[in-house]
């Protein structure tokens, strides 16, 4: 069994080593894009069951975003929803024989965490400008600036580590059990791994939204036209 901390390099594109995780990511991207094209081909005013299911997913996502941030979900829907779908598909790709989930490798999880960090900056700057975003680090007072800056890094780092640890450990355990006990014994663990993959995708998406909305809320609380709605509770596991 290969070490989960190492990615198998399939081929090299100049300085970039194309690993198995990257190829799997491309496959997931292709599947998701193709499915999106196929599923949204004929959206009618009177929805079919398929369209109703799609709209239910979008509505649930919007509701989740609205409840978490208290803001219009439209600007965040694409990023948060895609994060959830990609991580879910990546986690569940372990069901395909011979495929290791991309999220079981450091680069993918680190890339996702980096994107969340950048999105926090992006949405924060877009909401209140550069100055407004930077002022959120001085809340509630300038003494907290070092701690807030450290928090902004550590919380995305914790996301990255959490996702990587959970997925990698599942793959690692299933690999060990499969090498020791044969074919059918790992099945319950794989089922548990499905649940873990769903929960981790949900947690990652929700935490991303919480971090983004906390930046928005900080900006909103500091502005004269502050929204009186309560700040969302940060969830961390």
């Amino acid at each position, binding site marked *: 069994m290969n070490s989960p901390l190492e*990615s198998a390099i399939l081929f090299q594109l100049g300085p970039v080593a194309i690993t198995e*995780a990257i190829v799997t990511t491309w496959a*997931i991207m292709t599947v*998701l894009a193709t499915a999106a094209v196929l599923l*949204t081909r004929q959206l009618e005013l009177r929805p079919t069951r398929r369209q109703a299911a799609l709209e239910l997913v979008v509505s649930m996502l*919007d509701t989740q975003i609205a409840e978490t941030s208290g803001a219009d979900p439209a600007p965040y*829907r694409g990023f948060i929803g*895609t994060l959830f779908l990609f991580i879910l598909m990546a986690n569940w790709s372990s069901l395909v024989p011979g495929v290791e989930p991309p999220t079981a490798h450091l680069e993918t999880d680190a*890339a*996702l965490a980096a994107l969340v960090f950048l999105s926090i900056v992006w949405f924060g700057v877009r909401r209140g400008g550069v100055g407004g975003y930077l002022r959120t680090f001085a809340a509630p007072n300038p003494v907290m600036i070092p701690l807030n800056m450290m928090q902004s890094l550590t919380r995305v780092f914790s996301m990255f580590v959490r996702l990587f640890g959970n997925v990698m450990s599942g793959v690692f355990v299933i690999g060990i059990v499969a090498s020791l006990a044969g074919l059918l014994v790992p099945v319950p663990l794989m089922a548990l791994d499905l649940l873990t993959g769903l929960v981790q995708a949900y947690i990652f998406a929700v935490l991303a939204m919480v971090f983004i909305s906390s930046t928005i809320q900080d900006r909103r609380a500091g502005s004269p036209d502050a929204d009186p709605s309560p700040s969302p509770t940060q969830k961390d596991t």
Partner: protein
Amino acid sequence: MTIDVWGLGLQAINVLILVWLLSRLFWRPVAAAIARRQDTANAVIATAEATQARADAALAEAMQARAGIASERSATLDDARTEAEARARAILTAARGEADAMMKAATTAMERDAEIARKANAARASELSLKIAARLLERMNGPAAQSAFLSQLITAIEQMPAADRAALADGANGLEVVTPGNTDADHEKIEKAIQTALGGTPKLRFVTDPGLIAGIELRSPHFVLHNSWQADLAQIRKAVTDGQ
């Protein structure tokens, strides 16, 4: 444990591309479909509310028109009732006046008929009484009655002016002496008495008229001296007739 920075960057780009793809291909179309349906539902609801408002307005207008029709009907009925009552009163008044006029005319006619009947009865009664009197007088006719009538005749002649007596006595055509049927002896007596009363010898011609009942009358072409019960009855009849 090492992190492949190139791999990290490539994966970040991959996820960003996926975010862009799914935003274009999945999230926006589905959200647009939801928004389109919500807009359509809102438009349908707005149309339904507008239609409901129009229906309510039409209903209110219909109710108002219905109330107007009812009030107009009531007013028309009142007018018709008032007009009918006025017309009935006019007809009743006219009928009453006509009835009064008819009753008055009938009363007048009845009074006239009664008067005519009364006069007719009175006339018949007088005629009957005159007939009865004539019958009775016929029974009383005799020499005494004739003698009395002769005396009355002589008295009447004597009371006439002398010129009239002379004119009668000298009349060329003579005088008719009308009696109910006396004998010749009576004629002589009568002739003598008349000549004596007139003071001459007029030419006398005796004429019998049973209609006189009793009495003696002198007649010439221009003079009649009535002296009979017939004349008396005629005078009574005239008096009765004039009195009626």
